[in-house]
């Protein structure tokens, strides 16, 4: 990294090098059996530099020639945007725990055992189900150095178990599944099989549903899949800067129900979305986006913050190119209502667990529409069975403006969203 900086600074005014080195071992299951063991080692190096006041960028995976990388970045700098920020002085930050060396003590045999235990439990509950999934452990090292001085690095471990079940029954195909992940080893395979079996039990029978407006409960999976992408887009400092966010002039206004609070929190110990620094070396922090229904703030990286007269909120994230604003881990605050009480409250309604196609609409204005891939019908306060071949249509801003209740059943979904169930008074349902 020092060599790249040294060569870059011969031609450029300033430069920054970001490197990720990772190793991951996924153990994969297919058709209820162990299928494949993988080992994936990778490294990539990205160079951002400022030449004649403009930003250039290049990256390389694998072994790289420092001079070639610098030349590629210099070549792009002639078109680059004006450098409106300076690379921060880099300081290590050890306050947020993301590394657990005990992950290395989990053997391949242990991982095979975890996956097999879940498959055994699910197959024991439901004959004929076909499970597919993986148990994976990995370590990644993040390093950043800049010509402004300093060097920072941190390591993050990850352990995740995901399992999906597919049940073909009378020409129907039913999907169920769960995922748990952490920076520490996950050993509670029973929590995963219990969740999959819960979904199977609720979907045991098919239930008829009619077109119309019905009350709806989004389970944690439903919230994560159907409601969050419009909000992630609307709170992005870049969408706000471009004037394409419906919330652009709503800071401080009560746009959502008073029971609804949302934050981006990369500071929680051992969560896969946590990190002490963002991908530009800025210290991360917990950012409240919505507090009791009011819009509090948007999230920024260095460049977008500079363009809009703000400071970076520690949300500069790289996903294949230059850093841009992205969330780390969204947390929706718990309410006080149990899922059972929400269900009891409904005369006729629908529970949405998985919505297919929700992100294919006009996310910018909050509209979503999708096929209920996994959902249940409620009649007179109890679940009567699975709803299928059904479309719902809603708008996130209308749904979250008046929420009937927020659940007390918060859980992490894949390590990047923590949410309870949310009960909304009305959604439009279309069925044949």
């Amino acid at each position, binding site marked *: 990294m020092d060599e790249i900086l040294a060569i870059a600074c011969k031609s450029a005014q300033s430069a920054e090098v970001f490197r990720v080195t990772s190793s991951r071992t996924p153990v994969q299951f*297919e058709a209820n059996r*162990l*299928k*494949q*063991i*993988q*080992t*994936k*080692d*990778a*490294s990539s190096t990205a160079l951002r530099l400022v030449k004649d006041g403009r930003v250039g*960028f*290049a*990256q*390389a*995976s*694998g*072994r*790289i020639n420092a001079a070639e990388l610098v030349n*590629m970045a210099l070549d*792009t*700098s002639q*078109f*680059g*945007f004006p450098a409106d920020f300076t690379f921060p002085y880099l300081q290590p930050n050890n306050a947020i725990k993301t590394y657990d060396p005990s992950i290395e003590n989990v053997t*391949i045999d242990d991982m095979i055992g975890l996956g097999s235990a879940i498959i055994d439990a699910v197959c024991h509950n439901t004959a*004929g189900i*076909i499970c597919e999934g993986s148990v994976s452990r990995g370590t990644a090292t993040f390093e950043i150095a800049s010509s402004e001085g300093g060097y920072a690095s941190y390591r993050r471990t990850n352990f995740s178990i995901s399992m999906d079940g597919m049940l073909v*029954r009378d*020409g*129907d*195909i039913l*999907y169920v599944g769960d995922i748990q992940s952490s920076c520490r080893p996950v050993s509670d395979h029973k929590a995963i099989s219990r969740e999959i079996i819960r979904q199977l039990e609720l979907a045991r029978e098919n239930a008829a549903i009619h077109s119309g407006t019905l009350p709806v409960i989004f389970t944690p999976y439903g919230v994560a899949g159907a409601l969050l992408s419009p909000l992630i887009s609307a709170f992005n400092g*870049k969408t706000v800067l*471009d004037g*394409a966010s*419906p919330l652009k002039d709503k800071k401080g206004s009560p746009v959502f129900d008073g029971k609804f609070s949302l934050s981006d929190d990369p500071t929680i110990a051992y969560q896969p979305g946590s990190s002490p620094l963002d991908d530009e070396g800025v210290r991360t922090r917990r950012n409240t986006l919505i507090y009791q229904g009011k819009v509090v703030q948007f999230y920024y990286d260095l*460049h977008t913050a500079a*363009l809009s007269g703000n400071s970076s909120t520690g949300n500069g994230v790289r996903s294949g*190119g*230059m850093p*841009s604003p992205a969330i780390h881990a969204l947390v929706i605050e718990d309410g006080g209502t149990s899922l059972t009480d929400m269900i009891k409250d409904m005369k006729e309604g629908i529970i949405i667990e998985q919505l*297919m*196609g929700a*992100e*294919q*609409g*006009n996310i*910018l*204005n909050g509209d979503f*529409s*999708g*096929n209920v*891939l996994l959902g249940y019908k409620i009649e007179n306060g109890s679940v009567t069975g699975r709803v*299928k*071949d059904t*479309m719902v249509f809603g708008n996130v801003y209308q749904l979250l403006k008046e929420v009937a209740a927020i659940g007390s059943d918060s859980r992490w979904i894949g390590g990047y969203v923590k949410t309870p169930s949310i009960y909304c008074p009305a959604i*439009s349902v*279309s069925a*044949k």
Partner: protein
Amino acid sequence: MKDRLFAALKGHQADYIEVRLDESKSSRLVYRGERLEEAGRSAGTGGCVRALVRGGWGFVSFNSLDKLPENVALAVEQARQVGKSESQFSPANPVVDKVPAEFKKNPIDVPLATKNNILAEYNRIMLGTKDIQTTSIGYADIKKKVTLATSEGTYIEQGRIDLNLRLSAIASKDGDVQQVGLSIGSKGDFATVENLHEKVQDIAHRAVALLSAPNARGGAYTVVLDPVLAGVFVHEAFGHLSEADHIYENPQMRELMVLGRRFAGKHLNIVDGAAVPGYRGSFKYDDEGTPATKTYLIKQGVLTSRLHSRETAAKMGEQPTGNARAINYTYPPIVRMTNTFIEPGSTSFEEMLSGIKEVVYAKDWYGGTTSLEMFTFSAGEAYMIRDGKIAEMVRPVVLTGNVFTTLDNIDAIGNDLDMNQGGGCGKAGQSPLPVSNGSPHIRIQNCLVGGK
């Protein structure tokens, strides 16, 4: 390199081993509104080893070739830990071949400044349109060389050049935000992203028009799909279900997908094939070295074949179709589509609309996904057609169907096949894989449309 790879493959107790190496160079330009947000270049090298022992697989990916012999040994050891039965893998004759990248106007030779100027022109057109709030443009091209060496003696070098461009015009008024996009892709011809000025102006006008368009009413409709959206439909509705890795180890799925089952009327023919030349899903060999084919998935309404890798073909007692593809060296090949389309019929667009009271005419695509049985696909543009005449524009709709009923509800197939090259396909974390899909206009009865 050839000798080095074959040396590394020798002397292991495995039923099959392959080494695949990738070398790539790419460039990328991103605009947000007036700002060029990213001008970047990247280069990459890497490789992987996959080994099969007694039905179990091991896979190792890496960036450096320094430890190739150790990586081969690790893949074999991992496969041995998994393998408990017998390997089933279709036999193949060794192939030695060198396939250079195809191109017309090579994007790699076009200076970044020229690319930038073209995007800037398109951007000015959109931003200069009244009520357009902002834009988003992403352009990327990649030149790739993939080398495959197998323990059976196959050694193939294949080049490929791929490019794509996505533009979005975003209109805003009184707190409402609407957008319309355009996606273009090509296997090695930069000319496909030139001279799009009229189309770009059109998406900007449509985005503005959407601000005053109503939402469609939800419910079951007769729908007519244009060739672009019908291509996405065939990809989601039937293409994925034809991928044998969803079927081969699932006894109930094998029953549902038994060859000879009727899915639709005699007028429906669905094809997939990388041997169909000139599209983004075209190639000479797949990532297991199997020569590309052209496969009829549905012929005259009946399931006739499906897409295979060498493993799924062997396990189902069928022939490999050359559909094992990996997006890059960090993944093993899995069964994927290539160029997927509905063959043209004889109905004209006018005939398709005549005599029907109300039709949703859905055009262009925004996205699509499938759960094999049920699928959704979303239009980028939609109109109500009443008594054969195009009436009001409505906001883009999401449509859904069920494979066991919807294909049979196709009651008219147009004569105007067109291929769409703007999309990419995602499966098992490998996304976006270059594919193409297409169709003539088609009409579907009783199709569920999401809406208020």
